[in-house]
């Protein structure tokens, strides 16, 4: 952090939290004596029992082998039989065009039928239809709730910061110039 930013942050802290600012920044917590001199041994012992020995031996060779294998799989297109490629592409295009035309016909028919259906609906039938849609949404929601798995949700969301701010806190934060001043 450059000196200027450091000063801005200090000044902000002094304004925002004078008591905290006046305290000495020391770590009050203690680790047991000798803990850090033995940690590497304990970890390596655990790794030896959990990870196959020689895991990284020849690792670079394995990676290079993999890269080479992947490269050999890619055959330049100009080396292939060009006529064969064109005929396959033309067949695929034909399938898509026919499919699209058939589908378009279905869509047109459906729009026309929906139009007639909506014109014939009474007000009460429309209300019913609305209720049905709401019910449908509710069913989707219940299904989602049932499928919801707390464990996997937590696994996937552990990176979300705790943003449990009250609206007063947000107002106060936005009205301060703190978030504008500090460069990072």
């Amino acid at each position, binding site marked *: 952090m450059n000196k200027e930013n450091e000063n801005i942050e200090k000044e902000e802290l002094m304004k925002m939290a004078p*008591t905290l600012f006046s*305290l000495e920044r020391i*770590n*009050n917590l203690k*680790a047991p004596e000798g803990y850090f001199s033995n940690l590497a041994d304990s970890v390596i012992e655990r790794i030896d029992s959990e990870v196959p020995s020689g895991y990284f*031996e020849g690792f670079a060779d394995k990676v290079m082998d993999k890269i080479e294998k992947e490269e050999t799989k890619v055959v330049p297109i100009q080396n292939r039989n060009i006529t064969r490629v064109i005929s396959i592409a033309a067949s695929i295009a034909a399938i898509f065009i026919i499919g699209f035309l058939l589908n378009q016909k279905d869509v047109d028919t459906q729009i026309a039928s929906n139009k007639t259906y909506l014109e014939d609906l009474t007000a009460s039938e429309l209300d019913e239809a609305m209720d049905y849609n709401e019910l449908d949404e509710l069913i989707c929601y219940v299904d989602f709730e049932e499928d919801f798995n707390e464990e996997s949700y937590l696994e996937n969301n552990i990176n979300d*910061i*705790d943003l449990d701010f009250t609206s007063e806190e947000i107002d106060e934060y936005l009205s301060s110039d703190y978030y504008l001043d500090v460069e990072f």
Partner: protein
Amino acid sequence: MQLSDQEIVAQIKSGKDANKAFRDLIEKYQERLYWHIRRMVVNHDDTDDVLQNVFVKTWKGLANFREDSNLYTWLYRIATNESITFINKKKKENNIPIDDESYHLHAGQADYLMGCDEIQEKLEKALLTLPEKQRAVFHMKYYEDMKYTQISEAVGTSVGALKASYHIAVKKIETYLTEN
């Protein structure tokens, strides 16, 4: 002479003296990661478990680690995620709701605050009122003087959200210090 992060990673991946290089990595980062985790999980034994898991995961994950990435923030990220997973697991085991932030108050608070003078003890108590991740953000900014961009990579949150989170943490601590 201490090896650079790139040298350590390259040496481990080459397989030559991998164990020795990994020991260098542990010795280089163990204290910083310990305090980062300890701020979140509070008690020493739990911190030890989490920290060992972090290094085991680091060893297993180094094979896929891109050498142009920042080892320092990658380690912090693993440590943050491991700590939060551990805390949530503990809460579940003790039938405490995941969003209950007061669980650590049951986890040996007396030991945690031993040897502090009165005002520092108050600061430690104030820190315990913050949610775990906000406490970690406060620790990285206030005690370790890390840049917001580094913290952002370490906890996987946007810089804007982090600044807001730190700002609110500071306000809460100040209120606690002045009102209690």
